[in-house]
């Protein structure tokens, strides 16, 4: 755990108390069983918003508190522990970052206050295929009078059914795969020609595929510069990745602690199974990985807050190490619980499913290893 300021400690303690009392894993299970259409309970999200969590990275002048990414990361770590389903990451971190980093004054004034109160849900629509590949943008944006016309598709958009606004990466020149020629747009979900298809994912969280069929937007929909959206997109994605890594840290820590508790009570061969060295050493290895991953996640969040020049490397490090660690811990959670871990009644499966979805979102281990190597010049 990083050395925290008083404000950060208060934020974390509030998040811990609230998730444990109001948003336990059983709340997530109830949400899943009720098959809520958005993949989260709006009443739960409203409570989170009421605590100010949607405004943590938004400057005070736009209705936020400006507590920074480490602050929001601490909240996400706690919500990750109990698998709390909400669009907090998508809207209050990813989309808010897009506007804070790339928005004009008018765009910020128009969108950020709503995001900060939680009344408006926004999200990123970036990927177009089965893998995170933010340069692979084929969705075309052509000039249309003063404004633009968008044609193409976006896949696996987090909270895609809940969002009222999308931050969409589009191609205004060049080929899919090029960094040049990417432009970002803000597109309202109710725009004519925008069709969304709800996806039912293993982790029960909300996601959608989007089709853009001649979607017309005005000139004020463009976020940042034409053709030069890549560096902005990369920075926005790094914020989303670091925030997701923080959520994954909480998920992994809880998966580990739940498993450790089980090792201390499950009796076989006349002793608790936690007395067996084969399991002890695996538990120690998981603990070791968690400590290493925590350092990476905290370093990435702090780097963002401090605008450090090595932010991109640290974010890829955090996402990759956290992905590796959560992968291992979630698998071990099932294995160490044995048969009970295979049952739907037990929480292990919920953690396992969430682990894979979170690993994949915004780039898995292979993506970030490759990116880290590129950033280091090899």
């Amino acid at each position, binding site marked *: 755990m990083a*050395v925290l300021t008083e404000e950060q400690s208060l934020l974390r303690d509030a998040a811990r108390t609230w998730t444990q009392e109001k948003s336990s894993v059983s709340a997530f299970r109830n949400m899943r069983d009720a098959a809520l259409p958005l993949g989260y309970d709006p009443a739960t999200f409203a409570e989170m918003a009421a605590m100010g969590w949607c405004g943590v990275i938004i400057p005070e002048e736009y209705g936020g508190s400006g507590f920074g990414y480490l602050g929001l990361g601490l909240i996400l770590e706690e919500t990750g522990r109990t698998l709390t389903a909400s669009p907090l990451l998508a809207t209050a971190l990813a989309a808010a970052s897009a506007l804070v980093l790339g928005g004009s004054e008018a765009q910020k004034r128009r969108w950020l206050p709503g995001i900060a109160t939680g009344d408006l849900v926004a999200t990123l629509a970036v990927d177009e295929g089965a893998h995170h590949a933010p340069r692979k943008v084929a969705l075309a944006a052509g000039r249309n009078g003063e404004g633009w016309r968008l044609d193409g598709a976006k896949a696996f958009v987090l909270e895609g059914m809940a969002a009222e606004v999308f931050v969409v990466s589009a191609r205004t020149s060049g080929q899919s795969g090029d960094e040049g020629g990417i432009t970002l747009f803000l597109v309202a979900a109710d725009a004519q020609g925008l069709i969304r298809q709800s996806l039912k994912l293993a982790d029960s969280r909300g996601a959608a595929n989007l089709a853009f069929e001649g979607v017309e937007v005005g000139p004020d929909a463009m976020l940042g510069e034409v053709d030069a959206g890549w560096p902005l997109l990369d920075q926005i994605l790094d914020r989303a990745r670091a925030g997701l890594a923080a959520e994954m840290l909480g998920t992994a820590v809880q998966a580990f602690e739940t498993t450790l508790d089980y090792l201390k009570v499950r009796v076989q061969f006349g002793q608790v199974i936690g007395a067996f060295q084969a399991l002890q050493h695996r538990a120690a290895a998981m*603990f070791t990985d968690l400590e290493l991953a925590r350092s990476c996640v905290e370093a990435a969040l702090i780097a963002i807050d401090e605008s450090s020049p090595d932010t991109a490397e640290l974010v890829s490090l955090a996402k990759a190490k956290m992905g590796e660690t959560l992968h291992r811990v979630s698998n071990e959670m099932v294995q160490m619980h044995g048969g009970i871990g295979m049952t739907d009644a037990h929480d292990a499966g919920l953690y396992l499913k969430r682990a894979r979805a979170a690993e994949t979102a915004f780039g898995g281990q292979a993506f970030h290893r490759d990116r880290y190597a590129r950033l280091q010049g090899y």
Partner: protein
Amino acid sequence: MPDHPAADPEAFRAEARAWLAANFPASLKGRGGVMMAEGGLPSEPDIRAWTRAMADKGWGVPTWPRAYGGGGLAPAQAKVLQQEMSAAGAWSPIGGMGVMMLGPTLLEYGAEAQKQRHIPPIARGEARWCQGFSEPGAGSDLASLQTRCEDAGDHWLVNGQKIWTSGAQWADWCFCLVRTDQARKHEGISFLLIDMRSGGVETRPIRLISGNSPFCETFFTDVKVPKDNLVGPLGGGWTIAKRLLQHERGGLAGAGRGGLTAEPVSDLAKGYLDLDDAGRIADSDLRARIAGHEMDLMAFQLTAARSMRESRSNSGPSAATSIMKNAGARVAQDRAELTLEIMGNQGLGWEGEGFTRDELAAVRGWLGGKAFSIYGGSAEVQDSIIAKRILGLPDPLGQSR
């Protein structure tokens, strides 16, 4: 309390930089890792001068009190010194087990006379110490040690055998765990300082797979030791040893890191491997593993820094500290394996022509580094310690230690 006047670490930075510029010989730049690994510094005039300068300044042991020859720096200043030394390619010529293990232990548990006698020579790099802990029958189960120490009236009489005593053939002194009570396992152990020039002390170097002999067998036959050389109470050696092992593990994690500050393996790889048109390593499997390793290394370094910050702000070791030895050993060993793989056939040289000095050193380093996960508590012992002390799992052997 630090007794250095410059309380502001950033003000201290300028002072440290200027002093290093004036005193660190350019001929020694970046040679620290290589020379320290060879067990004893060569007698070059520049090395002698540098050692003397560091000894006079007390910066070989920057946080130890000035009264005992240390630098008297606050931890934040010591960190700045470390950064400035690293930036200048400078390295401390004062090290070894006296600095890493015995000094901190004596400062905590030693009698005043013991501190005054033994700490200043360690701080000046003049006294070489070895560690007499392991025995042929007491490795991971250290507390089963059998070296006997009997009260012979005006002195102690020591008989027994130690093994893996690093540098015993060169050491002036040995800090030793001895059995003063046969009936009690842990409470029968005492902590004794033995002059290696005493009659009845014999050392035999052990040749290792690396070809080097950094370790010895050490035999004590009717060795007379003054009564004053007992550290702490009779039968209180185990408590002191556990504390000392914490220093050892902390130091070993640091030592692993020291070996890791050299050139990134990705740079090395560019010299040995084919690159694609974009200048990237063409072998995608190896490239991914190199990146994976560099990330592990970065994670380890970030954790080392975090554990220091937290230990300072909590004024006690952070949970992250417990993982450092194993994590450091693993990263260092992975690095050695990867280095050899990158070098290919050039990474198989044992000695002689056809290989660079770095290639030969890589082979010896790879073999020598296999000890990282064995000494100072094996990787398995460390995992058991984490399981028991941090995770609260029961001892599989039903012991309370």
